[in-house]
């Protein structure tokens, strides 16, 4: 009986959280049109969320591309197909690793920072204080951060993929001696702008919404103590990673399923 009650309790609190999350999402959406009048707020947040994530994205993109070059070469050379390295590297990056790895890194770098920031603002009564000053924290604090995350992730993903393609080039062409022209020509032959690049951009837009939403909700819904904030930060990273990987499967099935 006891475990049944426990199950019921956790199910109820899960759906309550889900409901609160969606209410917050719609409240944020209502706040977005107002951002047109306050572009300065959004710029400030794009800096915090996007520019400060740039280094980790560029470095990771470079190394992921280099590893792809190395591994792809080792596999392809057995079939005498090392000329196809370019297409392997580009398709892997543009379709999957670009959006997904960027979203995971984003959750660790920017998402956790957002959660901690909002959670601490709540714990130190800054959000309450704002409310008492007749300023809606959802519109003033959450909406610009949401917009910034939503805009930054596709940009970061594009940079990740582009840098990764060059990383694969350095290893494949520079070190392993794959033909320069073959690298690019195979890549171009295999990669289609609408089917591959554009679908990747759509994926990263979806991930941007989800990752930022989760980060903001966890911060806003955190128990306002230091322990509550630290747990919320952890939850942000875990939930974002799970959501991104799960959604990636769904999106891939929809886009490339046929």
């Amino acid at each position, binding site marked *: 009986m006891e475990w049944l009650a426990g199950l019921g309790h956790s199910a109820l609190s899960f759906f309550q959280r889900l409901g609160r999350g969606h209410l917050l999402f719609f409240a944020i959406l209502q706040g977005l049109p107002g951002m047109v009048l306050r572009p300065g707020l959004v710029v400030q947040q794009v800096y915090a969320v996007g520019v400060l994530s740039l280094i980790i994205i560029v470095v990771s993109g470079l190394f992921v591309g280099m590893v792809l070059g190395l591994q792809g070469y080792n596999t392809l050379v057995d079939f005498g197909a090392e000329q196809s390295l370019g297409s392997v590297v580009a398709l892997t990056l543009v379709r999957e690793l670009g959006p997904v790895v960027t979203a995971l890194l984003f959750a660790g770098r920017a998402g956790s920072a957002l959660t901690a920031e909002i959670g601490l603002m709540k714990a130190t009564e800054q959000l309450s204080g704002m409310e008492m000053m007749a300023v809606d924290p959802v519109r003033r604090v959450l909406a610009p951060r949401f917009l910034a995350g939503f805009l930054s992730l596709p940009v970061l993903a594009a940079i990740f993929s582009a840098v990764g393609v060059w990383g694969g080039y350095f290893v494949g062409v520079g070190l392993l001696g794959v033909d320069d022209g073959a690298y690019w020509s195979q890549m171009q032959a295999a990669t289609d702008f609408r089917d591959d690049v554009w679908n990747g*951009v759509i994926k990263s837009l979806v991930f941007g919404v989800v990752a930022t939403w989760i980060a903001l909700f966890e911060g806003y819904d955190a128990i306002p103590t230091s322990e509550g904030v630290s747990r919320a930060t952890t939850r942000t990273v875990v939930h974002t990673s799970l959501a991104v990987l799960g959604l990636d499967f769904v999106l891939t099935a929809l886009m490339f399923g046929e």
Partner: protein
Amino acid sequence: MMKSRTVEIWVGLFVAAGLAALFVLAMQVSNLTLVDDEGYPLTARFDNIAGLKVRAPVTVGGVRIGRVTAIDYDPRTFQAVVTLRIQARFNQLPEDTGASILTSGLLGEKYVGLEPGGAEEVLAPGGSIAITQSSLILEQLIGKFLFSKASEEK
């Protein structure tokens, strides 16, 4: 105010980098690469180019001297017209140079191999290669092989 200005500059750079990255990704797939001014064009007509792609290498004796820039089809002669762009410093190709479509490895990429002849005259920019050999098509080869085997056994 100074601080918000640097923030704006950084964000501007960030957005520009993102657009540049997207541009690179787009260029690599849509083949809108800026025209390679270096070098001179040659054309070659093949009966069958099956598998040859734009930007594929053009080699002489295994050394790459240029690349394929365009592939077209001539509806009157029913032939494929391949435009090659050869680097400017390799401007000594004899007029009777032959071109064949080869495959690197059994399943590898198709490329254009040039076979220089012995003529005194040199191929001029925009010139046409007369002696060509089409792509080998694996299915046809296997078909021929099986057919000849079958007829031997009779």
